[in-house]
């Protein structure tokens, strides 16, 4: 009993330490640079308490739920020995976690505005809506494919840098041909696709696969799935901008 309370207290302190830099930065800029009082101090303190508690629970649950399930599924798939179903699983995981991602919905809506302003599509509510939906589906498919490629890489043991550098070369070439208005959005879309729940799960999946296949090193082969998931959306979004 006492031990678990002590452990909880320690992880609360850890979370507080993780958050201290943000609080320091915001306080410093508010008081010293902008020279204004802090509005709603009680709300700020209450919010900080919630953030600290939340981070503690998240990390606790991570080690209990997300990491073990990712690894046990990777092991189960490699024992079953069906590459087809593993790849289907990889695609579904990538697609379904991305298509409803709030950050992506926001970016897609913003992109539709840019496209309408730039005269790429008709500036009406309906065409903007369909442009945004198309963009979201494009990104979700590209993330699904990214996880598939990443899993194939782990199975085959391909070195990651050839694939990533090849991807970069693709991006550089497409940048030259894509409409300028879409470039900024395309570059940003790589970063926003991977959510806080997807990242630990996908990492555990990769590491689990690499450790259950003989001849693979979990450090060299297990990581890298997220890298593909942030690379392919850039290519696909520029492609989308070129076609529409």
């Amino acid at each position: 009993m006492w031990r678990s309370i002590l452990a909880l207290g320690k992880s609360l302190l850890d979370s507080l330490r993780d958050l201290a830099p943000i609080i320091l930065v915001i306080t410093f800029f508010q008081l010293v640079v902008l020279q204004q009082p802090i509005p709603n101090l009680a709300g700020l303190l209450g919010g900080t308490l919630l953030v600290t508690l939340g981070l503690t629970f998240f990390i606790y649950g991570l080690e209990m739920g997300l990491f073990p399930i990712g690894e046990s599924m990777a092991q189960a798939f490699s024992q079953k020995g069906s590459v087809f179903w593993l790849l289907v699983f990889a695609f579904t995981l990538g697609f379904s976690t991305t298509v409803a991602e709030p950050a992506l919905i926001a970016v897609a809506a913003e992109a539709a505005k840019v496209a309408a302003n730039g005269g790429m599509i008709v500036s009406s509510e309906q065409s903007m809506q369909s442009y945004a939906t198309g963009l979201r589906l494009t990104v979700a498919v590209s993330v699904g494919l990214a996880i598939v490629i990443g899993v194939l890489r782990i199975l085959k043991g391909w070195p990651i840098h050839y694939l990533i550098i090849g991807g970069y070369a693709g991006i550089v070439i497409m940048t030259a041909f894509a409409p300028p208005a879409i470039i900024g959005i395309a570059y940003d879309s790589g970063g926003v696709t991977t959510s806080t729940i997807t990242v630990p799960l996908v990492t555990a999946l990769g590491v689990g696969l690499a450790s259950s296949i003989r001849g693979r090193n979990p450090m060299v082969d297990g990581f890298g799935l997220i890298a593909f998931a942030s690379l392919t959306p850039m290519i696909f979004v520029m492609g989308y901008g070129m076609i529409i």
Partner: protein
Amino acid sequence: MEWLTGLLHSLLATLRDVLPIAAVIFGFQLLILRRPIPNLRRVLFGFFYVLLGLSLFLQGLEQALFPLGRLMAEQLTHAEFMVEGSAGVLHVLHWTDYYWVYIFAFAIGFSTTVAEPSLIAVAIKAHKVSAGAIGVWGLRIAVAIGVAVGIALGTWRIVTGYPLHYFIITGYVLVMIQTYYAPRLIVPLAYDSGGVTTSTVTVPLVAALGLGLAESVPGRSPLLDGFGLIAFASLFPIMSVMAYAQISEFRARLDARKKV
């Protein structure tokens, strides 16, 4: 009362985030793998804690830190703030007049990355997999420095108006050269850290900074120039993580030489 409805709201939003993932996992587990999940109770509790933790986290950010951070980004990028700083003399703003913006960008990039939950998750995993060779804090600080430099450079780009793709393509070339020299073990993790850095905490604040800046700098359009900061924030950590490994390796070699 108000924060309770807010909490409920973010709980629902997180639930919507988790549901597709849970559906995929349990669907495949039951239909394709056809075997029970080991320690099901524990895993379900784990999911519950993740859900609860993320909702509290988001609600707290939304209630306390985000409004202040966004307001700050707006005020710092406002032209009046800069003119006041230069003793009220009316003149055309030079890019050096925006120095507080760069400092803020650096500081907020660093501090939000340190608190990013998904980065903590990856750092814990990397620490375990590398059998302790990669420190949890070392990796997080390396990524945070990368994000900070990236965002500071990104704000400078918005102020000066140079095309985004010059910077990104130069960055790619540097990453390729560094890949050739970096220790092989770190390369996949370094590539990953680019995508990991930008989620819950960093994106909202950084996006506000970019849009505010693009609105207030004359000649910039928020629609065209407001984007691109996230791209910087996902490119630079790749370099800083590889640099971290290179420096650790270099120091280990120095130590080894001393002992001989």
